[in-house]
């Protein structure tokens, strides 16, 4: 029995959906993409071309919900299914959208560059807790025009895992799909076994920008999975109440799904988001707040009630270093996300809201994730009798159970064995080891991972083709050469 957290009852879910449908009519959805407006108009929506506001009637959405796949998979480089979007499957990937990385020696939040993203990718690749890679940070040593596809390029070079990514323009999304198609052996094969999912973001409140709606349309037509990342900020860009934010989230997602399915019915799309409460003292978006997690858990429940695959942003922290606050917020976030049965939980590695990535945090978060995954496994019945058979030959002596074969056979099925990130040593053993705190232990583990990492073996012809494609785009963006990647064999 997978343990579950439910913050909403059925009646409340109905109210949320009912009001979301009302919002789609009044005030309506602002759709800044002409093609999307046209699709909606053709389907019978009332479109005001002047204000770009579309009144989206419920039946358009209902019809779209009928054609959305309830489940699909992401595949790894080898074409093996690794991530199941659907049901209560729970997966984790590193948070993306970072602009900086935490430098462990100085605690500086340094603007991210190529080498930093490669470190993040290598660490995420080595930790089994991460079911997928993300395109975790923007590399500022390459021109802006290729920021999005360059991130994907690096992930493709250093990873075999599925990828959660996103384009920054309606043009580059095609280049990125082409890159993935080279590895997959063509766009058709990529559609059959998609390795990546692309984010598509509405702008709160109730706006589908030219870019956001464009992504929905391009991805739907390409048949590449799309992940809606709706971001109501409760109290600023959304109602202050958590339920108000959840309702706005539903309206943004439902209207997005309508546009997406009108572009191509049956294309896969995910009910996702990165909402937050709004911080009323500093004006920020606290991704480590429990209320943020409550909005996430609730909207996931709404999405599940519609039978949709789900995604959320949890496990990030607002702390600036890897301290107790980071541990509290990240651990709670993972737990809430896991118990809510969210299919993909993004956010690991992130500090300073969602601005800064840290490989050291990725290894610490991996332990949080293991704990959350253990909790999800729940109480297991491992033996015929629960206890009585264990007492055969036990003579009222503590320690006797250590002698039982079944103890040796079962203890690793019952107990998750943490890495040395989690300290369970005696005070003496801990002192002998140099009294390391969590951060120190994480730094050691990152050093070990990076030292032993070897780049996955990839088809050299595919590699060369992708390199040519990316180099061409880099040259158009004003670069003469791509940054030299030392580990790369000449293409």
């Amino acid at each position, binding site marked *: 029995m997978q343990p579950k957290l439910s913050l909403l009852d059925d009646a409340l879910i109905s109210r949320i959906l009912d009001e979301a449908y009302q919002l789609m009519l009044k005030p309506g959805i602002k759709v800044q993409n002409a093609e999307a407006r046209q699709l909606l108009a053709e389907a019978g929506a009332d479109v005001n071309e002047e204000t770009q506001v579309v009144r989206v009637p419920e039946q358009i959405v209902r019809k779209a919900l009928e054609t959305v796949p309830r489940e699909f998979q992401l595949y790894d480089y080898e074409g093996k299914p690794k991530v199941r979007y659907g049901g209560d499957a729970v997966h984790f990937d590193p948070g993306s959208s970072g602009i900086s990385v935490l430098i462990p020696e100085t605690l500086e939040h340094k603007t991210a560059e190529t080498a930093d993203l490669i470190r993040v990718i290598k660490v995420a690749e080595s930790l089994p807790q991460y079911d997928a890679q993300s395109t975790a940070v923007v590399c500022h040593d390459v021109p802006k025009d290729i920021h999005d596809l360059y991130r994907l390029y690096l992930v493709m070079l250093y990873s075999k895992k599925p990828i959660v990514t996103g384009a920054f323009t309606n043009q580059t999304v095609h280049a990125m799909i082409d890159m993935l198609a080279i590895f997959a052996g063509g766009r058709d094969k990529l559609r059959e076994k998609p390795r990546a999912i692309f984010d598509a973001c509405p702008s709160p409140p109730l706006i589908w920008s030219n870019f956001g709606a464009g992504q929905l349309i391009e991805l739907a037509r390409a048949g590449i999975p799309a992940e809606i990342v709706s971001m109501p900020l409760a109290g600023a860009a959304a109602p202050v109440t958590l339920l108000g934010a959840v309702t706005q989230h539903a309206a943004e997602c439902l209207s997005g799904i309508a546009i997406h399915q009108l572009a191509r019915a049956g294309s896969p799309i995910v009910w996702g988001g990165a909402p937050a409460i709004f911080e009323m003292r500093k004006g920020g978006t606290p991704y480590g707040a429990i209320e943020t997690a409550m909005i996430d858990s609730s909207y996931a429940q709404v999405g599940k009630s519609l039978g949709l695959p789900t995604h959320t942003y949890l496990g990030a922290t607002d702390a600036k270093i890897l301290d107790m606050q980071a541990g509290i917020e990240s651990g709670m976030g993972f737990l809430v996300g896991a118990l809510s049965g969210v299919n993909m939980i993004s956010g690991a590695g992130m500090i300073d809201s969602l601005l800064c990535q840290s490989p050291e945090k990725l290894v610490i978060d991996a332990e949080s994730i293991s704990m959350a995954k253990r909790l999800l496994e729940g109480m297991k019945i491992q033996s015929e009798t629960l206890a009585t058979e264990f007492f055969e030959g036990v003579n009222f*002596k503590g*320690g006797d159970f250590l*002698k039982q074969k079944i103890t*040796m056979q079962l*203890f690793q099925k019952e107990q998750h064995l943490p890495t040395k990130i989690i300290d369970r040593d005696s005070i*003496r053993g801990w002192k002998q080891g140099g009294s390391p705190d969590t951060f120190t232990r994480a730094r050691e583990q990152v050093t070990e991972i990076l030292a032993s990492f070897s780049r996955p073996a990839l088809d050299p012809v595919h590699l060369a083709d992708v390199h040519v494609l990316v180099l061409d785009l880099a040259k158009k963006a004003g670069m003469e050469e791509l940054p030299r990647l030392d580990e790369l064999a000449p293409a």
Partner: protein
Amino acid sequence: MSDELEKLFKEMAQSIIDGDSDISVELAKKSIEMGVPPLDAITKGFVVGVNYIGDQFGAGEAFLPELVMAGEAMKAAVATLEPELIKLGEAREIMGRVVLATVEGDIHEIGKTLVGTMLSASGFEVVDLGVDQPADKIIGKALEINADLIGMSALLTTTMVRQREVIEELDKEGLRPRIKVMVGGAPITRDWATKIKADGTSEDAVGAVQLAKQLVGKE
């Protein structure tokens, strides 16, 4: 060494590593049939396995259940070989005689029992008195079996002071340094051991075996 013998010793070590008492006993019987000197079976076969698993445990590669089961498999093998040893008039060299107990007022014994298992597996003769043992019982048993070592366990800060009482009693009777004392338990630190004039302490059962060997001059 013949190939056959070498194979047997390897299997013996492996049976201990696997913590499989059935196989260790079977191999012990087989060695008797083959006419292998029982002492060789112990020192060149089974003990190799105990040492291996002890090292693995120390390195964090093996777990407590494996350690305990290895100890049990070792005990079972030695018990099988014992009648043969006696018949041949060759006693296994005893590393030392040890009395183990949890001190008066304290009923915790998992750690102490582990130490006992590992000490037996390593060739010590161990009398484990159990829990809640007053000083006179512990000392009386030590004198009775002519013990080289007393090992005392305490889990509580309120009972650890009893360790000192036993040591003071031993001193009063003039039994030290003939009888060495090791102390252990969760609250026991090296400072505490020094303070109460114990001869040593160890963090875990594997360390306790090393310490015991040192104290009896066998290492």
